């Protein structure tokens, strides 16, 4: 009888210890804070670039022996696609109609190591045959590598074609007059909108970007 009593007494202490630990665990999990909390449900971007891609020259008139794969050169193309119709006047003030497709001659420049992380950057600083008050606002393409040029290269007489209709408004650039850059085996290019570009409904392109796959460009 006495042995059983002792065992029961020990059992009592075990149960008591368990409860004590449970309460301690609860106390350890209680975290009172005065931190601030903000939350909201935001709509997705209304106007953004959907894709950016390059292609090596396939124009036999420009590169009868084929393009210089992996290096920017004449005949190479850059294609940029938006998700909805562009407000053309935000790219060039002279373009007041959104239903007109545009063809023009521009100068495309690859600036050496001009990107935020030191990569080479493609811009379109000038357009011929039309006066754009405030400048031509194309945006820029970070080429994802510093190896494409060792100094700035400009491709004058570059074809610029804007097809601004449907769900795939796109811009195609084709280089025509410039020197060949250096070969890069693979890179990810990123198109950054000009801060003033908007959709036809006035939605800003803002900080939205389009990126390519990691592939051989140009």
């Amino acid at each position: 009888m006495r042995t059983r009593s002792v065992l029961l007494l020990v059992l009592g202490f075990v149960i008591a210890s368990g409860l004590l630990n449970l309460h301690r665990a609860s106390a350890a999990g209680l975290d009172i804070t005065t931190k601030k909390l903000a939350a909201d449900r935001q709509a997705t971007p209304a106007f953004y670039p959907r894709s950016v891609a390059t292609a090596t020259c396939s124009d036999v008139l420009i590169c009868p022996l084929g393009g210089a794969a992996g290096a920017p050169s004449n005949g190479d193309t850059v294609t940029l696609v938006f998700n909805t119709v562009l407000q053309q006047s935000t790219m060039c003030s002279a373009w007041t109609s959104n239903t007109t497709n545009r063809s023009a001659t521009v100068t495309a420049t690859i600036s050496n190591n001009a990107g935020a992380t030191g990569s080479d950057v493609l811009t379109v600083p000038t357009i011929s045959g039309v006066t754009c008050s405030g400048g031509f606002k194309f945006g820029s393409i970070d080429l994802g590598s510093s190896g494409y040029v060792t100094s700035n290269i400009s491709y004058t007489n570059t074809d610029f074609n804007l097809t601004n209709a449907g769900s795939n408004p796109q811009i195609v650039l084709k280089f025509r007059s410039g020197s060949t850059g250096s070969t890069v085996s693979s890179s990810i290019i990123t198109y950054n909108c000009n801060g003033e570009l908007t959709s036809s409904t006035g939605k800003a392109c803002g900080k939205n970007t389009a990126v390519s796959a990691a592939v051989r460009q140009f």
Partner: protein
Amino acid sequence: MAISTHSRVLAAQARPRVAVSRPAQRRGDDLLARCRRAARYFWLIAVLLGATSTATNLAFAASVTGTDRDVASGFTIVAPCQDLTTAEIAWSVKTNSAVMGVEISGLGAGCNGAVASITLTDSANASIGSQSGVTVASGSAVFSTLSANPSPSTVTNVNVTVVGP
């Protein structure tokens, strides 16, 4: 007369003792024995209840410090670092098929140092990509390692949470 009365009293007191039968006495003894056995366990129950009560009290005592000072209480709302309705959402889309990253900008300086989280949801309000633990710096938070990379056309909303600073 007095003697006679006393005799009746004695007789009356002695009568019950004589009237108790053997079975009845046995039942009484059994009941007494049961009570004694039960009494042996009362101390055990008391110990268990006491130990439990002590444990509970000790636990609370570990998390609450007693004081004899005056206590005043109140309720104060901690304002968020910013009304997020004014924040801007931008994303990075890869080859028209995948949202690779999201940037929240336009956050006030008061949000710098806070920790932001996002969840991309579809039209059924189901999560189709998320990332948490991004520290707000210079008024923006960049989410570049989403748990999944949905097609931009399937994303309906971006739920944003900012905690702190």
